[in-house]
């Protein structure tokens, strides 16, 4: 039982990363009906931006220019990096996807892959082919709760993730932009006639998705402090699986499926040798999709009518 709860905690942390990234895939799909295949690499860029910001802020603090407690450095790092990475998302939308909005979906998908490669190799060119170490912003403390070991980092990671998801939920439900996003899933022609700018909403969606990916990147960096330019590929693919599993365009679905993916991976690794982890985990997901091809919360129809 203790063993189970130990893995549950690990699965929650692991699932947080997937869920945060999957949200970006799902939101963009929800409004533009395309998958932004560069999203995994935006996660990577977010982690690197977080690395830069954290290093910068820590350096300033150690020089005595500013006196800050560690937790505040962490909060600042997350906020500043999310803000900066959102502009990467806006740029990707503006330069990569907007010119292809009316193009066949395949072209847009390929664009995503190319942007991904550009981001990876751009990072290589900029920082060189070495891994960087994410600064440890908070001291690790381990609590023993009835035999289950929980670190403060794990609590922080899960807590911050849940907070961001809740904020996103509020945003979509309560702001006019969120309402416009939901309507944009149905049409791009009528919405402007109600005074809504499609381009603004698209840019905003990319910005939010990228900011969430950046948060995931930083949290990942805190848990596993080694970053490399290709870290976004596998993570991006897996989060993409979560987005599909949750149901394309569904925010709740992406969140739950992200956590589910984390659970499946961790619990498979708990029972089977870890080399078989992904093999078995993704076979299970393949099986789920066979019976529920449109995911948990997706809509059964695939073609949406446009004017």
């Amino acid at each position, binding site marked *: 039982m203790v063993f189970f709860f130990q893995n549950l905690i690990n699965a929650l942390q692991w699932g947080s990363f997937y869920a945060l990234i999957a949200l970006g895939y799902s939101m963009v799909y929800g409004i533009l009906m395309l998958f932004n295949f560069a999203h995994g690499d935006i996660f990577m860029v977010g982690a690197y931006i977080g690395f830069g910001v954290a290093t910068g802020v820590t350096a300033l603090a150690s020089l005595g220019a500013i006196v800050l407690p560690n937790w505040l450095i962490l909060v600042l790092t997350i906020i500043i990096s999310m803000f900066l990475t959102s502009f990467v998302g806006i740029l990707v939308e503006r330069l990569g996807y907007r010119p292809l909005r009316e193009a066949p979906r395949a072209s847009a998908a390929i664009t995503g892959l190319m942007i991904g490669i550009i981001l990876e190799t751009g990072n290589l060119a900029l920082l060189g082919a070495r891994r960087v170490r994410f600064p440890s912003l908070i001291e690790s403390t381990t609590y023993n709760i009835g035999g289950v070991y929980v670190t403060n980092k794990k609590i922080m990671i899960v807590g911050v993730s849940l907070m961001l998801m809740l*904020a996103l939920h*509020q*945003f979509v439900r*309560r*702001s*006019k932009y*969120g*309402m*416009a996003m*939901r*309507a944009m*899933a*149905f*049409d791009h*022609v*009528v*919405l*402007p*006639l*109600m*005074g*809504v*700018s*499609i381009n603004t909403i698209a840019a905003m969606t990319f910005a939010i998705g990228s900011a969430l990916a950046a948060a995931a990147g930083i949290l990942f960096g805190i848990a596993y402090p080694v970053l490399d330019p290709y870290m976004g590929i596998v993570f991006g693919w897996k989060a993409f699986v979560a987005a599909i599993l949750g149901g394309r365009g569904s925010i709740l679905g992406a969140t739950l499926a992200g956590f589910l993916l984390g659970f499946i991976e961790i619990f498979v690794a708990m029972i089977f040798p870890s080399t078989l982890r992904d093999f078995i985990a993704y076979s299970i997901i393949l099986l789920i999709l066979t019976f529920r091809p449109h995911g948990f919360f997706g*809509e059964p129809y695939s073609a949406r009518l446009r*004017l």
Partner: protein
Amino acid sequence: MCYFVSWCLCGEGKKCIMALLEVKKMSHEFGGLRAVNSYNLEIEAGQIRGLIGPNGAGKTTIFNLITGIYKPTEGDIILDGKEITGLQPHKIAAFGIGRTFQNLQLWRHMTVVEHVKLARYSRISYGLIGAFFGTPKRQKQEAEIEEMAHNLLKMIGIDHLSDQVVTNLPYGDQRRVEMARALSMEPKILLLDEPTAGMNPEELIQMMEIIRRIHKELGMAIFLIEHRLKVVMDLCHMIQTLNFGHVIAEGTPEEIQNNPKVIDAYLGRESVV
């Protein structure tokens, strides 16, 4: 050109009423095809204007040009003294043009009241802070919107459906939702593209009643495309007839009914409804 008074001097010093919506020599080409040719229109405040013509005459194209979905190849569109030619659709909408569609264009999985609310998009001014924390400003605006939505839906006769998802509603009610959505923007002029298309006789009479009520209670200028001549003849003060992108006749319902060109091109030689 005068912007501030509706009565003003125009041209050679004679008094005239300035049009609310004015279209001057507008043309549009699709590839080589001239879908709309040197089209002129003047609608005054409070007027109901009809646009009729056979299929493919270019009626919906004219709506799409006025609302900015297409950009005219030539010509000017002036709304309430402001030049709106070539602006983006969301800006034109915010200047005061509301519209419904020939084929229903609703956000199918959203509720009726959400349609009405979202059409207030450019008027909602509370930002993210308001959305997250429910500031007094948000509460005030939301209350205003709720009240406005309630009154509007009541006028259209669908206030009992406000929390229904539109995809579950019968066809006639969905048409009313479109109408409510367009009105919720508080437009200066309402463009209706075949408001009675696909309706049964009972729904048709109700819809005509709603259009009359909108005109009477809100004093709104209405520009409508219609296939059913009974509807146009009953509702409109002035009617334009379009054929192959040209206006072939313009006048009061009586004039149109008796115009030989119209009878020839559109009504057929035998009978007039």
